[in-house]
């Protein structure tokens, strides 16, 4: 029920918009539309309530003082010569990439055949919201998963065969 209530502000905005057109842009209807738009935005923002697309935008809102607890897993691809390459997973759909990494190596050569983020626009595709490095190495034979934390970098898993 609460979930459906969160739809209400956007639905109300659309209804108010239809009223604007139906009244041939009467000032009263336009004012109501503006009030719904600004009001819903402010309720979401100032009360920090999720009324998406009216959003509270808690962008990196926590204090970073606990940065030492951060853990991050990085994938590197290894070519035929045994050289490691940064592996940018963003061109793959995240779900297909994670399936490949967490299940088995043989799935990886199949991932380029799934719809990937760079399938239509190539290098003009929108990047991820975090900077990633390198292009996918599609002929790689090995994937290595590294764990980064405050103590350093450690190899935790290796997929594939050389």
């Amino acid at each position: 029920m609460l979930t459906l209530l969160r739809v209400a502000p956007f639905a109300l905005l659309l209804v108010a918009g239809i009223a604007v057109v139906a009244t041939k842009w009467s000032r009263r209807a336009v004012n109501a539309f503006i009030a719904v738009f600004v009001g819903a935005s402010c309720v979401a923002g100032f009360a920090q309530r999720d009324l998406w697309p009216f959003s509270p935008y808690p962008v990196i809102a926590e204090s970073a003082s606990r940065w030492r607890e951060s853990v991050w897993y990085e994938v590197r691809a290894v070519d035929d010569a045994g050289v490691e390459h940064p592996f940018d997973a963003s061109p793959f759909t995240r779900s297909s990439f994670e399936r490949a990494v967490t299940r088995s190596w043989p799935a990886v050569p199949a991932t380029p055949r799934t719809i990937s983020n760079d399938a239509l626009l190539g290098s003009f595709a929108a990047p991820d919201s975090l900077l990633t490095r390198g292009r996918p190495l599609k002929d790689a034979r090995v994937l290595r998963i590294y764990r980064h934390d405050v103590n350093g970098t450690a190899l935790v898993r290796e997929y594939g065969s050389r």
Partner: protein
Amino acid sequence: MTVWDRVFFAPAPPRAIIATRIIVIAHALWIVLSRPGLWSVNPPRELAARFGWLFDPAIERVLFIALIALLIAALFSRVASFGAALLLYHFAPLEEALAHSGDPFMHGLTAGVLALAVLAFVPRVRGAAPSPDFRWPIVLVRFAVAAPYLFSVVAKGIGWFTGPNIADVARTFALIGVAPYASVVIDHAAIAWLIAIGWLLVSIGMPLAVISRRVAVVIVPLAALAHIAAIPLFGVIWLAAPLLLVFVDYSATPNSSAHRASA
């Protein structure tokens, strides 16, 4: 004329609406075409009713193609803009599943959903004279673009904006390997404080830029610069940054600028 009238109903030329529409639609198309797997994401069941995730993949695929077609048609049609807003509401939260980290607000389509919903109710622009009804849609679209800056300050609290915390943010992103030049912030307390204070001023200034051209001329370029700098320093890419172009004053003509300059 009241302040409300001055802000929302000062006459604007139709080309300002056309420019805003092109920016919003081009940006939405850029992200939608960059996530062509949106229709195939397995969404969480508990949110299915809220976002209309009720269809099987074959229908989702048709809806996704319809979204692309409606976004293109929305350049010319209010009805298409309305349809595109509805379908973008349906698909935009799924972008989270196809890009790393964050929530829907971290990605670029949140303001686009609201902007398309506003542009669906704009009077016909073809052959139209400047009108008060071409002003309020532009103001609301700018408000949607400025909202993340103001409300993220509410979420963070003023105490978040300190040099040491900014340095710790840089350390976090350096640790996870996405910020190649984080050391510039970590090693220089003055730079960290400059970023903290500068970002706070930009974030508070953006809502003022919605209603003041003078503020916009200063704040919007600073915001754009900050987003560019954040890529090497923190590894964070703000996908909605291109929407800052809606703050350009498309009402001004070269002639009127020259006239003002000569005056």
